[in-house]
């Protein structure tokens, strides 16, 4: 079991990867990626049982993760590479021609660690539930994880899946919502208010936990606790409070950095705040 400090060090490196990757191609989504870094590092370096050295699509006997808000691909790719799914050197191909690291994640080019294409929002919860149902049929007791943006909850398909999961007692899934309160056109409050999110998920019949996605110890503790909530007849959701751009001060607290890359000056400024810990790609 890694120390919290070790996980935090990995987060610093992953955040460096994120800003360097989007800067290199002057495109991509740094804001949400930085906000979800602690969560993904906790999952891949501590919480999940998985086999990066020998990726199998079916993942029998492994915990599975599905990224539904595919635009935060920089953090996903960095965490996959850093945990051993592919060489970290490949991070330099992000969004370039002939790369396996497409703008949004895909299985199309055989990138190890990716099990579904995502990018068009709202589809990942259904897919994760399907994988959870397959695990039940296969008598595989591992858990399926999924991550969704709060803006993504505008999509109707999410609520079809939310209804289904509770009604059919799919209790081997832990879904997490990245509650950063921002989407492309502004705050979630102004674009399309989500109202009382906790009450909504509870009303649908989910077991709801909350956590602060910026504090690693809290992320790890909450994910461990969530695991103990599985297998009890209810799907589990974690409402994860985050800040877009977490770790880079000028990117925080605004939707401006949802899909904008830093320029040279901004990159230098960001890297100044993110110490290199386990080595740049």
């Amino acid at each position, binding site marked *: 079991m890694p120390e919290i400090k070790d996980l935090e060090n990995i987060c610093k490196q992953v955040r460096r990867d994120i800003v360097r990757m989007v800067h290199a191609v002057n495109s991509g989504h740094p804001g949400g990626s930085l906000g979800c870094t602690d969560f993904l590092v906790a999952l891949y370096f501590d919480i999940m049982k998985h086999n990066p050295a020998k990726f199998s699509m079916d993942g029998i006997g492994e915990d599975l993760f599905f990224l539904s808000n595919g635009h935060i691909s920089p953090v996903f790719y960095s965490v996959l590479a850093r945990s051993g799914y592919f060489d970290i050197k490949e991070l330099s191909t992000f969004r370039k021609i002939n790369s396996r690291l497409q703008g949004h994640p895909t299985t*199309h080019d055989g990138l190890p660690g990716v099990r*579904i294409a995502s990018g*068009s929002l709202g589809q990942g919860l259904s*897919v994760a539930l399907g994988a959870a149902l*397959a695990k039940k049929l296969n008598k595989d007791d591992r858990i399926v994880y999924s991550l969704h943006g709060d803006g993504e909850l505008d999509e*109707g398909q999410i609520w*079809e899946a939310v209804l289904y999961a509770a009604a059919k007692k799919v209790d081997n899934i832990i879904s997490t919502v990245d509650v950063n309160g921002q989407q492309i056109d502004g705050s979630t409050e102004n674009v399309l208010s989500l109202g009382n999110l906790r009450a909504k998920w509870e009303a649908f019949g989910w077991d709801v936990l909350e956590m602060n996605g910026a504090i690693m110890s809290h992320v790890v503790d909450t994910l461990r606790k969530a695991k103990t909530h599985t297998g009890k007849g209810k799907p589990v959701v974690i409402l994860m409070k985050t800040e877009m751009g977490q770790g880079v001060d000028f990117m925080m607290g605004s939707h401006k950095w949802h899909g904008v890359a830093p320029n040279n000056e901004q990159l230098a400024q960001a890297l100044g705040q993110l110490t290199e810990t386990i080595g740049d790609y």
Partner: protein
Amino acid sequence: MLLLQSDFKKTQQYLNASTLQHMKFTYTEKKDTRSGFGAGLLELGKTHPNVVALCADLTGSLKMDAFQKEFPDRFFQVGIAEANMIGLAAGLTIGGKIPFTGTFANFSTGRVYDQIRQSVAYSGKNVKICASHAGLSLGEDGATHQILEDLGLMKMIPHMTVINPCDYNQTKAATLAIADFHGPVYLRFGRPVVPNFTPANQVFVIGKAVLLQEGSDVSIFATGHLVWQALEAVEALAAKGISAEIINIHTIKPLDEAAVLASVAKTGCVVTAEEHQMNGGLGDSIAQLLARKKPLPLEMVAVKDSFGESGTPEQLMTKYGLDAAHIVLAVENVLRRKMSHVNS
């Protein structure tokens, strides 16, 4: 070759009065193609432990009830939530399941286009999208449910296999065949009872056209319910001295290009027949092939940029020009073009 002046009413009367007793193809019963799907699915339940089925509140209509009863643990009732159904199916493949989704053709395609595109096709998932009540022959429910664009929608998606069998036996055979084929498939069938004339226990080969009747004057490429109409047209054409070749294109994509080109090399002109919009359907695929490889006169029996409406299946097929009489008419038109083409 004897070319008669077209008399559409006479042709219709002839077809209505005729017992078609000289036809090479006969049938002892009429059955619905959706029941062929249901029977195939039930058989797969017994032979393929990884086959699972999902339905969006239309279990009876899709004839999935026998599978549901026999294999309740492998059947997923998803409610009226088709987008979720497609996503669940994509997810179920991760872990080795072979999901068959079932709902009406309209809700299997247009309603869930992006889910099929991203979560199934682009993700390379082994999902079988099985769609009933396609086309005008759905009848009285009217245009909201009579999708005539589904073949086009599905064939445009990269790597999607698109199948439209012609009768009960062939739909059952196709259902069995797609379980052993790895990759996303769209399987289209319908509601009305139609002649069941292809052999029982036939082997269905995906992508391989079936030559039903050899002929020398015109190639008729038909799919789905229109295959039987093409066979009925053969006799009326024969009475006019026209020798028609009939080929059943059950797989719209990948198109059996070799079979099409071999036939037209012999006949020199083409009629296509389908229960679908002219835009995007079988005729469109064949026209594209011929334009690239061998431009020839071609006529299409298809719906011409129109929605359907309420009525009996027979009334609708006649009104929208999707019956044997209209195939005869199209053949006469294309032969006239062929002759002027030859003489010019």
